[in-house]
């Protein structure tokens, strides 16, 4: 297997220079704020994702965590893709990302939907790493549900 398919430049860039890292309070005091803490029990990766929303728009997605390059870069991409989006749109992106990661490398990602998330296409070929990539996305799903917005796809059985 080609290592550079896994560790694409985009992923390493997000890992070394994460976007929007750090848990933040809501700017709009009227927002619902909720967070979820997820761990990967096999390797000890951890991430906390916090969502601030008025029910229609995800005003902020902030996060903190420690873990491998894949899980931490994935959190950075999640932040960048979904922050400021309408909830319906955000969940469509979420669904597309989960579908990509569940595809064992057979799914061709749509860059218009997934942006930098397309870089994770190679990760889907490494079953042991799919959970790393999904960790922040599953935490996001829980945090969003706790903040009272939508339910997105079920967790994949990696």
């Amino acid at each position, binding site marked *: *297997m080609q*290592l550079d398919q*896994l*560790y694409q430049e985009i992923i*390493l860039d997000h890992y070394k220079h994460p976007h929007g890292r750090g848990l933040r309070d809501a700017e709009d005091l009227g927002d619902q704020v909720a967070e979820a803490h997820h761990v990967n029990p*096999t*390797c*000890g*990766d*951890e991430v906390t994702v916090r969502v601030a929303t008025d029910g229609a728009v995800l005003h902020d997605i902030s996060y903190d965590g*420690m*873990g*491998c*390059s*894949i899980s*931490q870069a994935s959190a950075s991409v999640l932040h960048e893709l979904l922050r400021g989006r309408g909830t319906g749109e955000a969940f469509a992106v979420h669904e597309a990302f989960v579908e990509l990661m569940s595809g064992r490398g057979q799914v061709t990602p749509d860059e218009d939907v997934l942006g930098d998330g397309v870089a994770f296409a190679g990760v889907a070929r*490494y079953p042991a*790493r799919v959970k*790393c990539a999904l960790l922040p996305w599953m935490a996001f799903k829980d945090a969003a549900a706790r903040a009272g917005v939508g339910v997105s796809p079920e967790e994949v059985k990696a």
Partner: protein
Amino acid sequence: MTSIAIPTGMPQYDDVPRFDVARVRADFPILDREINGHPLVYLDSANTSHKPRAVLDVLGEHYARHNANVSRSVHTLGTEATEAYEGARAKIAAFINAPSADEVVFTKNSTEAINLVAYAFSNASLRPDASVLAAPSRETDERFRLGPGDEVVISEMEHHSNIVPWQLLCERTGATLRWFPVTDGGRLDESGLDDLVTERTKIVSLVHMSNILGTINATSRITARVREVGALLLLDCSQSVPHLPIDVVDLDADYIVFTGHKMCGPTGIGVLWGRGELLAAMPPVFGGGSMIETVTMARSTFAAPPARFEAGTPPIAEAVALGAAVDYLTGIGMPAIQWHEKELTAYALDALGSVRDLRIFGPTVPVGRGGTISFALGDVHPHDVGQVLDSLGVQVRVGHHCAKPVCSRFGVPATTRASFYLYTTTEEIDALVAGLEQVRKVFD
């Protein structure tokens, strides 16, 4: 190449037992494999070892030629299978110098063996009058009875399999769990021994060799204290029995546990060794066929050990193959294996010490430690280290190694671990070090 004669009277090269590693490697079919276009460099034997052809052949041969159930058939195949199964028990007893083969109880693995002891305590603690559970014609033995005020002592260095069963036992009985801390150098901190192991202690359960730090614990002070207070001592020898000569008489423990798949045997077979007198006093844990003396609709009486603790059809072929693994290891010689790994460990500690920004968790000298080395490479996550190494054919374990408290103790979520066995070579350690340079290139 010049050779230097070592003066007579000094330790000589040939004083220690040795073996030809290339010949040993030829016994292991899997070592011919390529991984991602590179020769396999298997540095994960603390996780599971590979199996020599001799063991694979016995496993196949058992099913092909001698398959039958044990301890219940009068026919020829049944007799052959029973003889092979009990013969394996005798081989394993001899391997650890157990005074009697009846002190060897077959289990699924070390985890089941520890749980078996914990549940025997549990059963003995259920009701003071639960003599139905006690051994024939005995009162429930006070040594196994736990309640509020009693204590179980473990250490911060344990595998989860030697933590969780005792936590659960303490929850069920109201006893208190206590533990030895670990020093910054990765050794067991025995400084509080006399306060930790007291008249309240019922059992001390300790790892003999740490699966993450590589530390081999010196147990004699602890054993002396355990005897003084009248407690029992269990040693988790999962990582030591495969790698060092183990003599249960010498160790003076009450129980040891180990698992077959880490010592060239198959998965699905492990061992609980217990002092004969103790096993005879222990109540049963699993009920079913083979473990009984007689059964009526109202109650049962139980067989003597080891049968009392082996309910149901056991892993017969696996036990027989573990016997073959023990024959294989004995043929090479455990002192020679121990010495080989000591030299490898010294080599690896030096080699890893030359890698920039690499931090070793555990003893950094090849004394009182085995060939299992955990480390961090800068702030590169172990998952990423392992992934790059895998692309070069180097198989290491990454993660918390089922020893999360050790990771917490050293302030890391996970480590990268290289572990050696009799088939490991210095060239493989060189491949690891070269691979770590590659990791740097990707993540620097």
